[in-house]
């Protein structure tokens, strides 16, 4: 998947990844890759500016905790209430977009009907 397409949906992906539990950077990346079966490949470093942007927007907050494997502490990101609302908005946006694209063959299922 090319970088621009990813960029457009990165907020949704990150917010959704944090929906269940707070995670730190490296785990977020692993989670995204597992959930999408490796469909999203990106340089791991690009994730941090995106997370910081979401933090600035107030959609996630952070907590630093010692790492159980030793070494430097981990910074955990957690979805805030406004982050949860933003996630719902983005999901709806995405669904409307999908719906609209059906007319142009954007959905195999739609074609057969």
């Amino acid at each position: 998947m090319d970088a621009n397409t990813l960029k457009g949906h990165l907020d949704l992906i990150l917010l959704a990844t944090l929906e269940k539990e707070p995670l730190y950077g490296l785990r977020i990346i692993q989670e995204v890759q597992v959930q999408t079966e490796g469909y999203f490949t990106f340089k791991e470093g690009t994730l941090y500016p995106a997370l910081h942007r979401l933090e600035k927007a107030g959609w996630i907050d952070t907590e630093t905790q010692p790492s159980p494997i030793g070494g430097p502490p981990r910074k955990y990101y957690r979805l805030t209430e406004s982050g949860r609302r933003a996630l719902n908005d983005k999901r709806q946006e995405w669904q409307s977009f999908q719906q609209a694209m059906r007319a142009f063959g954007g959905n195999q299922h739609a074609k057969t009907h």
Partner: protein
Amino acid sequence: MQKRIEQYLNQATRGLWGKKRQQVKQELYSHIYEKMQFHLSFGQPEEEALKSALQALGKPAEINTGLLKTHTFPALTKSLLLAGLLGGFLVSQAQNQKMIGFHQKSEVCTTQTCSGGPVTFIEADALMQTLAEQNIPATLKVEFNNGALLTLPNMHSIYFNPLNTFQKEGKLYLSFEELITTLSIETDFKIRHLKNPEVTFNTTTFRAGDQRHPFDATRTYQNLIAPDIYNRTGATLISGPAVSALQIYALSIKVPDAQEGEVYALLQPAPAHLYDSSLFQKAFTIQYAEADQGTLNFKSVSPQVKFSSLEHGSPGTVLLKITGKINYWKSLPPFEGIQPLANQIFYP
């Protein structure tokens, strides 16, 4: 190994400031560390594990661009770059008087104070030529957005993000302060003199400015010490017209061991109305002086001074000798605290 990581973190977080920079560095370091542990657990040698970890993380310059977009304030930077040029001055190189063009720009002061001194940019082509003439095989790679990567032998490359460069009449200029800060982290580094500073890194020496083209290095020194002071104390450094108006009491300090040209800084607690207390826990007024035959001449904001240290919580005047040598990894600051004895303090 640690040095390679340090270089990477410095490049990735260039342009960030104070605590924020330390926090981002720590976060990225944690990422690298854990990724390395992962590779090591599969039996990869340490060198390889680091290489894989950094490769997956991506180019530091790319991370830097992303971070700057999130953490800096474009409007302020723009006003800074639009400020008037003081003139096309020159940098002379110590041995054979080679000249490098430079520009010093005045900062637009939005409050009563400025963060100190004009901003300096040096001409990239002339810098490269000077390095070549000293048989230093440096290379400069300029990106489409005017970011530039300067690679020097036996040390890491210096990345100038687009905010630290500018183009004028087809020539690219690089931030002098950024160059100095990076050199001081990586090399055997010395800086002397407040006017027309002489900079030595490894075996290369150059002097910025001469009598005809004076070079004000206030900001160079400020940039060297301010982040560290902020990290240690939460204080910002302020200077400018409103501060100068308070500095009215003559104060001389004897520093018998001082080398010629050594620069010292006098920090004094700043009155609350001179800084934004929502941004900073506290502030120091700052003043620089060069050792002149073992004496420093300052103007104090109070008629009598009580010396304290940065580490010491109580308010007081702090005297710092600026060494310029930064070691981020061991948290060694680019200055040493000096405690003058009572018989070394004079009120002329």
